[in-house]
């Protein structure tokens, strides 16, 4: 990271631009950990966030998996919520009215069980002017093709993203799964297919067993690992992807402090999302924003954008 002296003690500029969405600061919640905003609204000032990101929406409502749905692991947790959501229609009618009250841009995470569903949801959401951008979750099983996730194969990713691209002019973020051999290939496919930005990472598939009952701890058997445990993997993937794509990245995975957040930006993320950490500390996002500001000012960095991708490695052209 380049340090610049800041004798006049200006306040650091934390604003960033993600795929045309202007953010006051790079900090936003991770989809599925912030409900539809209402739940956290009682505790924090949503206007202070960089963006709002809501629980993944599908065309029709889903009731999700039977419990138990969550289990704690070392430095992390597994969840198998099963994509429970109210569906596009109810989201627009019942959830949007609350969300439109804020000056903070709204990013809607969505998914489908078939490419058609993906397109339909994207289309319907794009008609809502309160929505600043879409985040497309491609880690879902494709029911048409035997339940294998869309986002684990570059070709499938390309096809799906292209189709969605055609139906929306909103900034389109594609959220990548870490459960792949080469996340760069998936990222490149998504970029080529028209993604305006990439969010990474989603959860890593894991499992927990209750020895005393001999059963899995989650009804769904496997679940997605999140939290500090996955931070090193997320950071590596952000760095790998940042070296091959041109679109901006949103770094996600185990971010719990301002330093974590800044590390992701040094690795190449233009913004970050906070998920699991919000469960332990409900005011973590405002705290991270303040902490980032303080760090930048103490170190004389007047604009956070200078940090993005500044990792000092021998072959980094950004240094």
């Amino acid at each position, binding site marked *: 990271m380049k340090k610049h002296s800041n004798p006049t003690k200006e306040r650091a500029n934390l604003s960033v631009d993600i795929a045309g969405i202007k953010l006051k600061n790079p900090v936003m919640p991770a989809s599925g950990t*912030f409900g539809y905003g209402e739940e*956290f609204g009682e505790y924090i000032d949503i206007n202070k966030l960089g963006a709002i990101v809501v629980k993944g929406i599908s065309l029709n409502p889903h009731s999700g998996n039977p*419990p138990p749905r969550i289990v704690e692991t070392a430095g992390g947790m597994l969840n198998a*919520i099963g994509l*429970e959501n109210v569906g596009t229609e109810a989201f627009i009618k019942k959830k949007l009215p609350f969300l439109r009250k804020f000056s903070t841009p709204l990013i809607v995470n969505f998914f489908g069980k078939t490419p058609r569903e993906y397109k339909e949801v994207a289309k319907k959401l794009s008609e809502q002017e309160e929505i600043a951008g879409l985040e497309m979750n491609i880690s879902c099983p494709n029911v048409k093709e035997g339940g294998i996730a869309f986002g684990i194969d570059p070709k499938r990713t390309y096809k799906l993203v292209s189709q969605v691209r055609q139906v929306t002019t909103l900034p389109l973020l594609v959220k990548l799964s870490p459960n792949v051999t080469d996340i760069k290939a998936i990222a490149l496919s998504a970029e080529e297919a028209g993604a305006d930005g990439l969010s990474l990472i989603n959860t890593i598939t894991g499992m927990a067993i209750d020895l005393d009952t001999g059963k899995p701890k989650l009804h769904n058997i496997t679940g997605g690992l999140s939290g500090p445990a996955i931070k090193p993997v997320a950071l590596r993937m952000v760095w790998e992807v940042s070296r091959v794509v041109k679109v901006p990245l949103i770094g996600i995975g185990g971010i719990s402090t301002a330093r974590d957040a800044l590390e992701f930006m040094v690795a190449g993320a233009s913004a970050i999302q906070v998920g699991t950490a919000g469960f*332990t500390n409900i005011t973590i996002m405002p705290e991270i924003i303040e902490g980032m500001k303080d760090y930048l000012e103490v170190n004389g960095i007047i604009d956070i954008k200078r940090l993005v991708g500044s990792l000092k490695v021998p072959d980094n052209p950004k240094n």
Partner: protein
Amino acid sequence: MHQADVIVLYNQEVAHSCYKMRFLSSEIAESAKPGQFIMIKAGGEFGPLLRRPLSIHRILASEGAVEILYKVVGTGTRLLSETKKGDFLNLLGPLGNGFKINTDLHAAVIVSGGIGVAPLLFLAEKISEKKIDLLILLGAKTKNDILAVSELENLGGEIKLATEDGSLGCRGLVSELLEKRLGPPGSPVSKIHCFTCGPRRMMARVAKLSKQYKIPCQVSLEAGMACGIGACLGCAVETKPREWENYFASQPHYQRVCKDGPVFDSDEVVW
């Protein structure tokens, strides 16, 4: 509802592996309703990642203090049990909906199993304050697992005990006490409400009895939790859909224990 570091005033073993803790929080003391809970971060920075849900056991309004009653079952509760007077604990609360005490309620029966008594003392106090007739049925495995008896006795209502091994009160399940009390099926038991907390199977039995006798019954459920505020959908419990919720069609219907509960009408729950 707020998140804060609170100072511990008291934390002692009150029965085998069961602890009572008291801490200062005028915010919670002023606003909490019986049946609500708090989410505690056990062990501080290096404890387990997630907060642990614990019911509000009692409010000491004049001191602005709150009591919890908990059983050591794993890492979080063990770390909590090691907390000392003067230590700080980070918590979030009060959370959840709490028990509803109808204004026209004449008589209430509280059915508690084991550590399930935790939220029920607070409830019993509120019911007593309202001069509603109160019967308390306390059950547990053995006499060592019967908790909070003296506090409940102070309320002046009737208390019946049952232990599975017969070491105190009747030998048997607390639901059998309830059954005995309700008399032969068909007996008229009007305007009684039932409130229960305990192991799921015990609550299921109480729910079934209540249904048989057409007594409204409120149950306080448990589920593993991450956020405690309704944001993560981790604490789902299956319930019967209400009519207008038929858009879920053939899918099961879930509610959030943390936000829609932890107290549910026993009829709502799919047991």
